[in-house]
């Protein structure tokens, strides 16, 4: 905390021992980054390493992150730990939408980042960043607890660099909601429906 305290801001000498001043950003970011609560939500193998990170040896509570909430409404961070399948995708996006701002997403492991070893599969999403914004990517299959912790530190670094004046979640125009994909014959991204209907119409016309 001492890094953030500004000693000389015109405070009378008599009150110096009791009052200190600091920037709002510093306190805001310090408190946010020291109590980032993740959603208790694991998809695949990486979730087991996430559990190991939470357990005694690696101990996530050193970062103030041991409070894993089962409800997305109470959490700040989503660790997408594992392969996102097409069938699971609407649920992942829904969980993301249910989290209150400010919210962060870590793509843990190769699968969440890009589809990983299962990328060729017919039911595998090629990286969660095709649908929701991701803040930190952690490589590995699965990443070791050490790399996950490194990812946490990178995320905290990002948080501390943000300014309350510029963050999107206090703007009126930005809801941050992601439209939930629909499970049709394959995953339909609602953002692309106009485009797809147009393509279907054109194909129909071409056939005559």
């Amino acid at each position, binding site marked *: 905390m001492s890094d953030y305290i500004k000693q000389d801001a015109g405070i009378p000498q008599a009150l110096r021992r009791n009052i200190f001043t600091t920037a709002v950003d510093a306190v805001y970011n310090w408190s946010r980054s020291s109590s980032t609560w993740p959603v208790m939500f694991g998809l695949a193998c990486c979730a087991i390493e996430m559990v190991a990170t939470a357990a*005694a040896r690696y101990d996530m509570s050193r970062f103030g992150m041991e409070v894993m909430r089962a409800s997305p409404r109470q959490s700040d961070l989503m660790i997408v730990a594992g392969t996102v399948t097409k069938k699971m995708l609407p649920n992942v996006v829904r969980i993301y939408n249910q989290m209150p701002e400010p919210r962060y997403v870590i793509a843990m492991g190769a699968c969440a980042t890009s589809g990983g070893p299962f990328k*060729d599969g017919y039911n595998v999403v090629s990286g969660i960043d095709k649908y929701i914004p991701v803040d930190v990517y952690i490589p590995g299959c699965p990443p070791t607890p050490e790399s996950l912790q490194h990812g946490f530190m990178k995320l905290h670094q990002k948080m501390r660099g943000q300014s309350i004046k510029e963050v999107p979640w206090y703007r009126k125009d930005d809801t941050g909601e992601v439209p939930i994909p629909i499970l049709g014959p394959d995953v339909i991204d609602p953002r692309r429906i106009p485009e797809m209907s147009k393509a279907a119409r054109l194909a129909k016309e071409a056939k005559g």
Partner: protein
Amino acid sequence: MSAMPAAVGEMELPRWAEDMPDAILGVEDGVWIVKPDSLRAVVRHLKESEGYNFLANVAGVDNLLHPKRQDVERFEVVYHLYSTEKGGDYIALKARTGEEDPVLPSLVPIFPTADFQEREIWDLYGIKFTGHPNLRRILLWDGFFGHPMRKDYREAYYEEEHKPFKSRFPEGSYVRQEDRTPWENNLVFPDGFDPDHWNAPEIYYEVGQDFKGLEKLKTDRIVINVGPQHPSTHGVLRMVVGLEGETITGLELELGYLHRNHEKIGERNTYLMNIPFTDRLDYITSMTNNFGYVLAVEKLLPKVTVPERAEYLRVIMAELTRAMNHLFAIGFLLNDMGAFYTPSLYAIEERELILDLFEMASGSRMMCNYMRFGGVAHDVSEEWVKLATELVYNRLPRAIDEMEALLTTNEILLARTKNVGYLAPEDAIAYGASGPVLRGSGVPYDIRKMDPYSIYDRFEFDLVTEEGCDVYARYMMRIREARESVRILKQALRDLPGGPAMGKPLPYMVKVPANEAYTHIEAPKGELGFYIVSDGSPNPYRYHVRAPSFVNLNSMATMAVGHKIADAMIILGSIDIVLGEVDR
């Protein structure tokens, strides 16, 4: 070994088929081809008169591209039957059906275990089963386009039929797969698909059975949904539960939230490439998955000898995995009960030490990728043996004692687990349960004893069973089995011979002679089986995983109906599932 089924007159009928000579059409690679109309009669005869009461595996095969099966019908379903009383090898049957409207009789009336497995075949191959009570898609969602395991189904990122793809090997220039597909994404739509004129199919969950004692409750019947994001579903399982008050009237599982196409990818890979993929099946016990897979391929390879040291190392790794898995399972069972974190932290402590050993031997904590055809990838050092001996002799027995002192006579644990989730022995066999679930119902069936593989016949250990048939019995099974594992480990570490840990290395693209076989091992969660059909090429023609967690879930509804909703979590925890294996 001929592809054409021999006419009945030319072959010798098996003894069990003497009463029904018309039912057997031929034999191919040790599998009896059965007339679809007689399939139920044959299976019922085997079950009731011959003692083959355990339907281990049901797998579909698409013969479209098999070079030796061009003149037979396109689809076939293979059944592997074992006997829990006699042990020993399997009897394999197959029934064939044509390309137009493939239909076969369902075996659910005889073996309820066929329920999920037949649904999987319908989902992935599009073979219908007459008489199946609930033939819906299981791993994919209703409304999905196509049956993806068919050989003519091509994924959006399809490059070639087999790996290694030319674009990547040896000096190909790899292009991002997204840049090749029409929607820059992994999507396949039917021709001319228009999202504006499409309606989602409706799904009806059958979760409202009536049973005795329910009429007293006088409550409204509601359906609640547990998962796929839920702290107690051990991953991404979804349960649709019908409730009257707090009592469960029906339960249906919705699987497939982690269906990552293990089998389809496995059929594109070479045999060797599949080893790291098996790590990711049951990601807690990667060593035993390796073990099962290499044994399955070694069974098909003609001349592979495994050195003594490698055999011992395999058993040591498998038993370390079992002890670790059982402690982990108990920890998470208690988590589900509300003992939040304390027992699981105790379990994870031991797990970390075992993972250290794995990392030291293989280079990776979780995904060990350790075993190879004809040995293990890396030998272990003197120091490793010293550390393992220290752990096995001094640390693990004390850890199990500690776990037991903490839990076994705990009043809350007894109140929550005794007489909850009753699974009668005959039901356990009929539902195809295996591992601690089956032995927790008092059925003495352990593949290490009944159909010994590797060098398990050299070790002295007991076949543990519990008579309770409830969650507590399954908990006790795990504690006692972990102790037996320690016993095996002590003997194996004592007798570990010197010498090489890998025989003559096989070529990278090992060619497996055209044949087929099913190999099963006793994985910590139950019977892990690999069914491999080879057509003589470097890639498996058909690669199917009989996952213990998946088949064990068949009995979940039976165990849970009539109990309170809070007990459903514990019952699920006592089956000890891992979603990577359930959905594959």
